[in-house]
Each structure stands twice: as C-alpha cells, then as structure tokens.
C-alpha cells in the first residue's frame, strides 16, 4: 500500500482530475454567469459535457485497449488518502454517467426553457454530476464518502427546484433520509479505519486478515454499510424518500433514478462486496444471503406498489425501487454469472429508466399528462416518444432483445448455477408484476382512443414535441435496444461486466 505524501501516478494521473474538473468548473462558471445569458450558459453546459465525454472516451481507450491504469493520490491526513483511480468498475460507472449527463443536459435545456432560476439549476446540475463522477472514480472509502455526501448536498437544490411547498417538503424528506444515511456511512468508514487503517478498494486481503479476531465487528460493519448505501439505493424499508422526491422536474428525476443518487447507492454496495470485503470472504462469512433476501423483498415490494399507482411518475418511481435492487440481488448471489447480471444491470437499468423518465417528462410538458388514464391514444399524437417509452418498458419487463432481457438472463441463469432456485421465483414474479404495470400503459397509449382532442401542436409538421426533449429519449431508447441486441459484441456493457467479474473472482 502506498501512503506517504505527493502523488503516485501510473501515467496520465491528471486525467481523472480533469474529468472531475470539467463539470466542477462548469458548475462554478454557470453560477457566475448572469441568469439571462442563456446562450452562454448553454454553451458552457454542453461544452463541458462534451469535454467530459471526450476525456472519458480517452480513458476508456487507455484502460480497455492498453490496460492502462490511472490514479491520483493525495494525503489528506496521515493515514487518510484522497485517491482517484480508474479501474474497470469505475470506468463502467463513469462512462454511464458521462454519456447520460450529456443527454440529460440537452433534455434539461429543452425542459426548462423559459422557466426561472435556470442558473441555479444548471449550476447544481453540474455539481451533481461532479459528485457522481467522483463516486465512480473514488479509489478508497474515504474518497467515496466525500463524494457521496457531496452528492446528497448538491441534489437537494435540484429536488426542491420549483420552490413550492410540496417540493420543499419533499426535499426535506430527502435530506431526512440521506443525512442519517451519510452519518451511517461516516460511522462505517471511521470504524473500519480504526480497525484496518487506510486501504484502497481492491485490497481485499486486509479484511480477510482481520476476520480471525474481529469477525463480529466486521459483520456488524457490513450491515452498517448496507444501511448507509441502502438509503440511496432505496432498499426497503429505507426507500421512503424516493416516491416523494419524484416531484422534482423530469430531468432531475431522470438523473436521480438512472445515474446519480440511486445508482450511487447501488454502486456503493458493489464496491462494498467486491472491493472492500471481497466476494469470497463475504460469501464465506455468510454476509450475502441476508442482503439477497433484502433485495428480493425490495424487488417484490417495489413492483407491487408500482402496480397500484395511477400517477405515471409515481409508478416509475416505485419501479425504480424494484429494478435497482436487481443490482444488489445479483451481487449478493455468490457466483460469477449472477455478478455479471448485476453489473450489467447497473448500465442497463440506467439507460431504460432514463428513457422512461424522459418520456414521462415529454408527456407532461407537451400535453400535460400526469395520470396513466390520460395517456389514452397518445401513441397517435406523440408516436416517437411513445415508441421510445415502449422500448424501455419492454426492457424493464425483460422482453428480448432489449437490455433488460440480458440482465435478467444472467441473473436467472446465475442464480440457478449458484443453486439459489428461489431467486428465479422472485425474477419470474417480478417480471409478471412488471408486465402487469407496464403493458396496460402501452395498451392505453397505443390502442385506446383519446377522451378529448389533443391541444394543437405548438410546432408544425413532424415535431411532436420540442426536439431537445425528443432526441435524448430516442437516443437512450436506441441505446437500451442496442446494448441488448448486440450484447455479445466487444466493448458492450456485457463484455465489460464479464471482464470485471473475471477480475473480481480471480482475487
């Protein structure tokens, strides 16, 4: 382990810093730009997102083709290192968040057109992405903690953006959940540090050596971490903030549910099991089964609640609770195949869910639709949006060849290879529930007649809605189809997930 001051760089250490800086600086600049300077703000926003994409592409190329490693290490205090490191798993999350950030930026520009306080919104929007990129790049628990908390604080202004009484109450609820979650994480980090000292993600021997003397403490600690990450990952019963927070503007919900907050929790659980405790140790110590059961309960509970909702965004919110837990479920099943399913779902769920929220936002913005019954006949009025929604909904159900099919395939076969037959029961039940709450939406949207004629289109000809709202949804829908249809291609999410898993199980 490298401690000591200064930096330990194995080539291109400035790249992770630049990736973080690209959105951090953009955030600052946006705060300094005048509210009315719309063009300039948009240019900064999109420019930063493009720069980040280019940087990530460069890192991707280095890591995947040349097996290059990037890390930057500073000592904060003796024994406390600030470490940014690119391994395959961080690359995975990094790519997801930078691609979706770019698309969500475009969407948000379209969505908030003409509304007040855009400066504040886009400023925090950039900071929020900085935080999620930081979480991806964090190389040890302390760095992870810093960005994890940073994320909590930067998303709050986004959730309460509209400033109404309801959104403020939702924001308060959000903080009342995530703050104790952060405190639990702090407790865990400090506790583990007092036991093991500072160590990096991937140094899993540290825990194994401790196990002989501190078995009980390590078990308790594991669940303290699960609790801390579980708040953001919306594991039952820590999920209460998520349905409340969906009151935020659509791009925020999209980001919250697909990349930023919920994913940060799931990503934390992945790191915890794979890079802190190590899968082999976690399995031998019997830590995984309770986590698997918790995830399974969450999956079924979320789906059942989703089925009962008649508000589109609320239904989607409960669906997120259910879908994100596939990640926790997969990682809690000991066996490489299920782990692949879990990892790949990190990306797949992001693509599909962001599409659904983009589309829900389009319906609400263009036609004022919030309730599922109001969707009747919307397929004729907004065929492209509805088509994107359909692809993503099929993906959530797991209909081939969409992304969700691949995730469920690996989770299902993986659970059986690991001898966990009950998981297939959970998957089948969840698929049934998914079908039961998504297919009626599709039927209503495509086949039912509208109750009253639609308001005339604002823009003539083909534009069913603003282009900035439509294109991101189409792109993510196409991506959620492509990553499933071409799952076995090199450098697909599945391919990377397989590589990550090989390394995890080789340790």
């Amino acid at each position, binding site marked *: 382990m490298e401690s000591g001051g200064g930096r330990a760089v194995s080539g291109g250490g400035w790249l992770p810093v630049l990736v973080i800086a690209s959105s*951090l600086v953009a*955030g*600052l600049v946006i*705060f*300094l730009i005048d509210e009315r300077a719309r063009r300039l703000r948009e240019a900064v926003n999109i420019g930063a997102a493009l720069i980040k994409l280019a940087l990530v592409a460069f890192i991707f190329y280095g890591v995947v083709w040349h097996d290059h490693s990037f890390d930057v290490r*500073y*000592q*904060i205090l003796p024994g406390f290192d*600030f470490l940014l490191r690119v391994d395959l798993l961080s690359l995975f999350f990094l790519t997801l968040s930078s691609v979706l950030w770019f698309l969500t930026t475009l969407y948000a520009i379209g969505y908030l057109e003409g509304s007040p306080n855009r400066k*504040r919104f886009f*400023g*925090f929007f950039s*900071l929020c992405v900085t935080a999620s990129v930081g979480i991806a790049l964090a190389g040890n628990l302390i760095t992870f903690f810093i960005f994890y908390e*940073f994320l909590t604080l*930067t998303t709050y*202004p986004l959730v*309460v953006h509209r*400033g109404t*009484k309801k959104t*403020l*109450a939702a*924001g*308060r*609820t959000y903080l*009342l959940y995530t703050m104790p979650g952060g405190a639990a994480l702090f407790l865990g980090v400090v506790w583990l540090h007092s036991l093991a000292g500072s160590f990096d993600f991937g140094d899993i021997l540290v825990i194994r050596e401790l196990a002989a003397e501190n078995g009980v403490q390590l078990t308790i600690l594991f669940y303290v971490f699960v609790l801390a990450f579980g708040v953001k990952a919306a594991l039952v*019963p820590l*999920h*209460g903030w998520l*349905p409340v927070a969906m009151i935020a503007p659509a791009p925020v919900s999209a980001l919250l549910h697909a990349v930023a907050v919920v994913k940060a929790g799931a990503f934390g659980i992945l790191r915890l099991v794979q890079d802190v405790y190590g899968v082999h140790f976690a399995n031998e110590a019997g830590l995984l089964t309770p986590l698997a059961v918790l995830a399974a309960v969450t999956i079924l509970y979320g789906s059942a*609640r989703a*089925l*009962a*909702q*008649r508000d589109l965004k609320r239904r989607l919110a409960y669906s997120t609770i259910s879908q994100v837990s596939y990640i926790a479920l997969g990682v809690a099943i000991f066996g490489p195949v299920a782990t692949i399913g879990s990892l790949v779902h990190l990306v797949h769920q992001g693509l599909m869910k962001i599409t659904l929220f983009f589309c829900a936002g389009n319906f609400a913005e263009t036609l004022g639709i919030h309730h599922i019954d109001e969707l009747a006949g919307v397929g004729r009025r907004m065929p492209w949006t509805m088509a994107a929604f359909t692809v993503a909904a099929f993906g959530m159900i*797991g*209909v*081939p*060849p969409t992304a969700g099919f*691949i995730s469920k*395939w690996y989770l*299902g*076969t*993986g*659970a*059986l*290879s690991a001898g966990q037959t009950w998981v*297939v029961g959970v998957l*089948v039940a969840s*698929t*049934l529930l998914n*079908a039961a709450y998504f*297919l009626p939406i599709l039927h209503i949207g495509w*086949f039912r007649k509208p109750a009253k004629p639609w308001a005339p289109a604002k823009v003539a000809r083909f534009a069913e809605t603003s282009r900035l709202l439509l294109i991101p949804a189409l792109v993510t829908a196409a991506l959620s189809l492509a990553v*499933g*249809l*071409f*799952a*076995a*291609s*090199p450098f697909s999410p599945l391919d990377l997930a397989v590589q990550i898993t090989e390394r995890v199980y080789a340790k």
Partner: protein
Amino acid sequence: MMWVSVILLPMLLAGFSRWRPESPWVTALLCGGAGLPALALGFGWVAPGPQSFDGVLLVVEFGLDTPRRILLALAAVLWTTGGFFAAGNLAGQPRVATFRCFFLLSMAGNLGLILAEDAAGFYTLFALMTFAAYGLVIHSRSANALRAGKIYLIMAIFGELLLIAAIYAAVSVSGSINLAEMAEGVWQDEWRTPIYALAIAGFGVKVGIVPLYFWLPLAHPVAPTPASAILSGSMLKAGLLGWLHFSPVLQGGAPGWILPLAVLGLAATFGAVLIGLFQTDAKTNLAYSSISQMGVLTVFFALCHAAGAPVEWLLPALALYAWNHGIAKGALFLGVGVAQAGGIRARPWIMAGLALAALSIAGLPLTGGALTKGALKDAVPLASSGLADWLPALLVASSFFTTLLLGRFLYLCAQKPHETQAVPGRPWQTGAWLSLLGILLVGTGGWFMRLLPDYPVALDLEKAVAAAAPILLGAGLLFGWHWARRAKPARKVPVIPPGDGVVLFEWLGRAILRTWRGRIQPLLAGRVFDVEKNLHRLLGIEQNALLADSGERHLGHWNSVGIAFFITLLIFIFTLRG
C-alpha cells in the same frame, strides 16, 4: 446474409407500413413480398451452411435441418399467401398501416425462430412473434377482439414466463446456449423433470394443449382472416418446434412424461371435436379443429421418445403432417373470407374448394392428409411402447371425428348469408386462396417425392378403403343427422361458449380484479394505510418536512451556496497538493 434477410426484410418493410395504406398493391408488395427469402430457404432454392453471429444477443446461430425446412416452407407459404390475401381483405378498411406493421413484425419472428439454433435467439424471435400477434388479434378493436386479446396476452405472458424459467434452468445446467447442446445437457441432469414440465407447459400455450388452449377459439374468430389462417397454420407449430428443441429426442432419451403428454394429446384430439361441434361460428369451429389436430401431433411427438422409435423418419413425417394440416387449415380460413366476399355464382366452387381442404385434413385417400397419416402409421410398429398398439386406431378415430367437425364447418359456411355486391379487393383474396389450394394439391406429394423418393405413393386399394371408411362413415352420419333435423330452425347461439373453460377463468379473474380494485390496490396505493407516510409520521419526518417552507421559500441564497461549495472544494484540492 440469406439467414439474416429472412428476419430483416420483413422488419425493414415494416418501416414502410404507413406508405399508401389505401393501395392493395402496396400491401401485397410489403406483406406478400417479405416472405421471399424464407420461401427460397424453405424450398431449398438456396442452401447456405449454418452460420453464427458472434456479436448479436449472446451469439445467434442459424441453421436448418429437414423437419425445420418443412416448417419454414410452411410458414413462408402461409405468410406470403396471407399477405396477398390481406391486400384484398383490408382494401378500404381502416388501420391498414397498423395491420401491416404488426403483420410484418410477427412474420419476422415466426420465420426467424425456425432458423434459430440458440436459446436466446429462439426466445427473442418467439417473443417477437407472440407480442406482435397481439396487434393482429385486437385489430378490429371490437369488444370481442379486446377480450380475446386480453386473454391471448395473459396466456402468452404466462407461457413466456414458464418458458424463460425453463431456459434459465436449461442454460445453467447445460452451460450452453446452443439448443442441441442444451437439450443434451438437460437430459443428463437430475433436474430434467421440472425443466421439461416448464418447457412443455410454456410452449404448450402456443401449441394449445389441454388445458392451455383457451385463447385459441377466442382469438381466431376475431382476428382478420389472413391472421387467423397464419395463427392456426403456422404459429401453433412454433410451439411444437419449441418442444422438439427442448426434448431429448435426438439423444434417444425416453423421458417419463411420454404417457401423460400423450394423454393430454388424446384429450385434445377428441375433446376439441366434441366442443367444436357445438359452435355456431365457422372460424371458432376451425380453431377447435386446430386444437384437435395439434392433439394428434402431440401424441406422435410423445411417441418419438419411445424406445426404438425411428426418429429420423418420424420427425420429418411429423413435420409433413404439420405441413399438410397448416396449408389445408390456411386454405379453410382464407376460404371463409372468400365465401364472405364471394358472389352467389361462385358459391358452389368455393364450397368445393373448402370441401377439398377439409377432406385433406381428414385424410381422404389421394390427398396429402392420407399420405402424411400413412407415413406416421408406418413408423408406429418400430416403436416399442404401450402407445404404439393403439396409435393406428387413434388416426382412424381422428379421421372420423375430424370429418364430423369439418362437415359441421362446411354446413356453417353454407349457411352464411352472402353479399351480392362486389367487395373491393376480391381478386386478391380469390387469387391467394386458389394458390394455397394449388399448393395443397401438389405440395405434400411433392415433399414426399423429394425427401423419400422410394416411398410407395401409389394407391393401395386395401389401405385406401381403410382410410376412406371413417370419413365416409362420418359424412354419412352428418347427412343423416342433417336430414333428420331438416325441419328445425338452426341454432344461433352456441351451446358451449367459445373458449369453453375460459369462462370459469374469466369469472375467477373478475373476482380477483374486484378484490384488487376494492381492497388491495387502495392498500398498495397508500390510500388506506400508507406505509411510508406512517413511517415518516412515526419518525417525525412528516412534521419536519411540513416545516420546510419557513426559511427556504426564497432559494436565492442557494446560488451563493453553490459558489461556496466550489471554493471549498478548490481549497481542499490545493491544500492536498501541498
């Protein structure tokens, strides 16, 4: 390229669905032309070697063997003639573009799944066929169609779920997604029985085995005529193909479910006829006939697994039986459409054509039905199974019962009030129907000459009499009965509702839905007891949240917070540097 074009061409053409919906020529071009690559492959005009596509799904593999080539030819013929028929059938109707789109997508799935040799590809195309066919079932948007669509979809999803569980299990025990290796792996695994049960039930929904056939008699009458023809003629066979892929038939395995499956097949063969006889709608009658015929196929599929069964003979024979039934059933369905559109003068000819197709299914000597039944019969003595003894009797009895059922069908068609004014697009329909009849006349014999050049096709008088007897008996009985009841008015309402047992399930479903709407949904929606809200109240979060608007209504200061954040972080990073 050839393999892919079978799937991609229909999908590509689906993109042109909205092009000139009023023109039957365009419909014919799109829906009739899309099956061309499949026709070429099915009839062996081109014969590329097996090919795999590494990057697609989880490696997609394509290939064909003789039984599947026959099924592909069958599917291609039905989809193509169905497409041409649709050009006339839909002329001047609303929603043509929608129909074209679902038709072509479902076609891509149906044709493609026959080629697929890997589990993921097969399942994908199977699902594409199934889900796209929903759009065909509910095409008319009538209350009946929506009801049929709902039941179709529920049962299809039920089937898909069983199927995916079976596939997960099969893939994980065999460690392969190649269908042949998968079947071998499952056969050698101790968990094979539950896996077989899941697969048989999962595909059984499509095959229409007892008791999973309810959707069939509901969906067939409401779907547009070409769609019902394809549903019965080709899509049901996809389920049979799924069984073949899963079963240990090529491993020579004799699983324990031969007898139970054969019993289910028997129940379908005869039960469906009994219920079908009480139907008053011609297309419902045909649907029950399909269930009955799939029952025969089920029994012989079970026989394939008996020790000593000549598999290399039985499987093509089974496929040819499916071919003959598929083409003839297609001709019957299209004939219903032709009879509805046709004028008075053409009527005797139409009835003659229908009778020909019906007799071919029943197995009158000189028809394809007699040939294929004969081929199945020849295989029976070789198999050492308790089944084998009474299988010839089954075929004879099936001929008799089929004659009754399809005789009733002809009677129902003759009863139909017919329109005298010209229907637009009639030439398309008549043309498609006549081509299908032509293929029926020469097709089965053609396959025999090609695949089994030494097979004695020549007429054996003794066999011919034996084959004709049950049909003549059935026909005699029908005429006698009809003559005895000639004075009584015809029934308008069926004694047994179409879909028979489904009525019970619908009652159950309504009861569940009532409970759901009345009790469970309000509970889960949080209207009675909101778990989260109460948790929040308990923890004081609720109150805290309501206090929120005290100081925060003016969020202006958040801008400065943002800048402060940045500066803190900047300072943080720079101090770290030092």
